[in-house]
């Protein structure tokens, strides 16, 4: 299987979108969040999404298999 890097426009969610994601996700996951945690959660979520975007922009073919139980 081949993969190649493609550079696509993949803008990160804006601040209000992150706020909405945090609120909606907390509801969906049945998590009760203290308002004092908000800044830390949003900082870390933005960091994860930055890393995820770097991976997501890499093009893989449709037959690319995930590494499930991974054996080196």
């Amino acid at each position: 299987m081949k993969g190649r890097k493609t550079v696509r426009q993949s803008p990160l969610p804006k601040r209000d979108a992150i706020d909405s994601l945090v609120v909606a996700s907390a509801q969906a996951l049945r998590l009760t969040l203290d308002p004092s945690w908000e800044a830390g959660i949003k900082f870390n979520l933005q960091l994860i999404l930055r890393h995820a975007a770097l991976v997501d922009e890499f093009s893989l073919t449709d037959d690319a298999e995930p590494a499930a139980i991974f054996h080196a």
Partner: protein
Amino acid sequence: MLDMLATDFDFMPAAEIAAAVGSGRSTALAVIEATLARIRERDPLLNSFTAVTEQRALLRAEAIDAMRTRGEAIGPLAGVPFAVKNLFDVSGLSTLAGSKINRDMPPATRDAALIERLEAAGAILVGALNMGEYAYDFTGENSHDGASRNPHDHERMSGGSSGGSGAAVGGGLVPLALGSDTNGSIRVPSSLCGIFGLKPTYGRLTRARTFPFVASLDHLGPFARSVRDLALAYDAMQGSDAEDPACAGRPVEPVTPLLQQDADGLRVAVAAGYFKCNSGETCYAIDRVSAALGANRDVEIPQAERARSAAFVITAAEGASLHLNRLRTLARDFDPAVRDRLIAGAMTPASLVVKAQKFRRWYRDQVVKLFDEVDAILAPATPCTAPLIGQQTFRRGDAELPVRANLGLYTQPISFIGLPVVAVPVPLVPLPIGVQIIAAPWREDVALRLAYALEVKGVVAAMRPVF
């Protein structure tokens, strides 16, 4: 004839301890009593232990001595004291995994599989070791149990998350310790504490009866002050185990007898690009090791930065999934820094996590091809020597980077695809730093042979700290 003093055991290699007990020059009881005294004396400075299993160790030592008296086989690690990161199940103890929450769990009813295997080889467990909460850490700091401290400078980090393991072996409290490595948690403390650490191939050593972090990425492995001791421990722990679904059904492949094989014919390259050193200490260490091994070529590990990001995403998501119920009911009992990262991980869109796993398979296939041309690849273990405890940033080239997220920047792309790595300590003054010797899957023997060759040449060594 018993002719050894308690002080003789200070910093004594495991192999020598086992030889002394096996020959009758010492008893296992004398070794363990000296070890326990050393722990009492030095651990207040290092904060490496969270539990000392004194009675268990003394009883086990007496049993070893009785077996020897009866002429029974006592194993290649007879009388050797060891300790384990406190995510390993120890019978009779709650498995803390560096947390406050797990203190309320019932005690384990059986030891972790690797503890059983080391004890079957005659080694003696003396306690459980400090770690970063739930292993989500590179610093060795812990808001519940306090930071484990670097043996070379007690104001500095031990590294993590196997911080207590690095400090206890680096400080000479025990010659062997076990830790875990998901993104660097054996290699980072090995580097900062100046000792040898082995992260085997993913699936080589069973993880049965240990508290997990990221099932896709968790490895277990030993720390030691010499390559021979590392190999002895590794050999004793090998073997398949149906209780760990990730444990491969590979036969035991002893490496200790192979250490002295000539390593001159092995093809060694230095990782370039993403892994290129840009601090004085890391460059010095890489240059010393590569010169000693005749590594006269570079190799580019493709997409390493992207691999690190993919490991980051998988870690965030799987770690969060593991702790989701605890985050719902006990969120305030987490270290806040860990809590916020876990909650954020739970909110990561699943499709991006699956993409990271797909990229993982692609990356693994590309990197393994490199080993058609080389037998081992060298890379720095950490981007800096041990930061001060509580230090938030460090300098890398022109950039100021956060410590917590970046101590593992060189280790993460390698553990992501489960390659075996020996971290070797380059004895810089005032602080040591490590180099990764990376081999092809299942070729721990190559990495250990190269580490041994470096040790014989005096290029790498576990420096003794001054107490």
